[in-house]
């Protein structure tokens, strides 16, 4: 039960990072430099990969 809940929470976090990555990449394509000026996208990508690994 607890493991399932933990898995669900990680899944939500993975979805969140996926959505954030999509949002940032699309924003950067539409308005160049609007994201990279504030955030290094590599950091977001690393968090997304970590959440994906935890999900496996």
């Amino acid at each position, binding site marked *: 039960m607890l493991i399932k809940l933990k898995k669900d*929470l990680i899944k939500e*976090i993975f*979805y*969140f990072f996926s*959505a954030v990555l999509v*949002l940032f990449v699309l924003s950067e394509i539409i308005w160049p*430099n609007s994201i990279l000026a504030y*955030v290094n996208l*590599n*950091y977001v990508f690393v968090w997304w990969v970590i959440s994906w690994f935890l999900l496996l």
Partner: protein
Amino acid sequence: MSSKRLRLILLIFWLILAGLIVWLKVVPLGHVTYIKSYPAKFNILGGKGFIDNLTPVDRVSIYPGQQAVITGDPVYFSVFTPRTFSEAKVTVTYQDNLSIATPIIEAGVLVDNVIWRYQLAPLENKLLDTGFKDWYKIQSGSTLLLQKNNNFTKLADFLDNLKAKPATICKDGNLKTCLVLYNTESLNSYLPVTNNLEKIPDFKAINIPLQGAHQFYFLAKADQALKFDFDFADLNLDKKSDPVVISVYKGNDKIYSTTILDNFGGDGLGQVRNFSVPLVYPTLSSSTDLYKLEIKAGEDIVIKKINKAPSALNVISKLHPVTVTDLPLSFWTDSSFIKVTTNNPASVQTLSFGSKSFLLTAAYQQFEFSNNTKGLKEVILNHDDVILETDGIFSFSPTSFFNPEFKKLDQHFVLSDDAQYILANYETPKNLTGNLKQALVTLNTQAAYRENGKYSFMISVPGLSLVKSGNMTISEIKVEFSGRTLWDKIKDKMLSYVN
């Protein structure tokens, strides 16, 4: 925590992020501030920031954990903005290790990318701060008046007299010798045009080919049509299109402008295309007036010949004669210095400036030659393809020379007995702790050139690379942009629909 609650929280956070991105892109309040610190502050998000590093690297040293050290003039930085703004306030925090030979520090924004013109304003002018201690000083806002004798107690009185009765301000009535200016573009409405000419010098055809953009002063009689006739050549050495923009200014107002498009395109094969441009502008002036002619073009364009103009043309600031058959070349100037550059190794030469000989020993390097002899001085070039620059005028003959400009308080200024007043738009920088100073310049970015969302700025210490005298260290550059708010834009849109 249930996964549904977490999903809701993350969804709200994602929406906030999306809203924040739109907010930062639109800048709805019309104000935004960007800061670049040296040494760089730790940035947890790892963003690359908005202000790029100072360049070029051979004039500025940037090492981790240290301040940026400027050792050459000028240096540049660009600022990315998510939208356009109408004003930029640039605050520079710096330490000044400069010698007396480099008393001026200026900052500015690029306004014309064809002739690389920057709108500059002073960060510091040590001549104004410490050079006139015995003079009477009146500061009102950013306007500064220094007087040798205490003739005016209020700045407004001086400006009113300058506008209404300029001849009464100086004892001999000659404003050009008794009034010295610095950064007074905002006070232009008070300044009379001082051409002091009894006779308008006649025009003689200019057969010296001039490469790239050039500006000229000329005079025209009342009701005289402004007639010009130019012969151009497009060298087609690069692949860019080469339009020529010809503009005529009266004072600060552009009264005429035309663009000659490059209909043949830029083929980049070196096939020269010659074309002539006759122009007529019927002036409505009721008196003899001073005008400025601007020919704006890239380096592919050569003004081969000027066949017709209302009066003699005198070149403003910069002259680039090329492919001249009749050497040596002679020009006249009343400036105390010339800056000389050539990009052609065959043009390295010994040149003469006011009967003194100077050596132009290398290409791709700027040389500055001074001659403090008063009056008109002849510049003799033995080879063409040399870029001559000064702070005043170059004339093609001594008889046609006239200089309508006031004296400027720059690093070349020499105080004469005639000077009675110094008028400037200037504020002394603030002194901070640890020998740091902080100065602010306000720049109009409405007409500034913006490429790929970036404005290009410059910090200039005139003469720094030439005299190799000290350096300037930068601790922080802060740029505060302001412009129309989102509400202003919506209002304008609504009004345009109503009208």
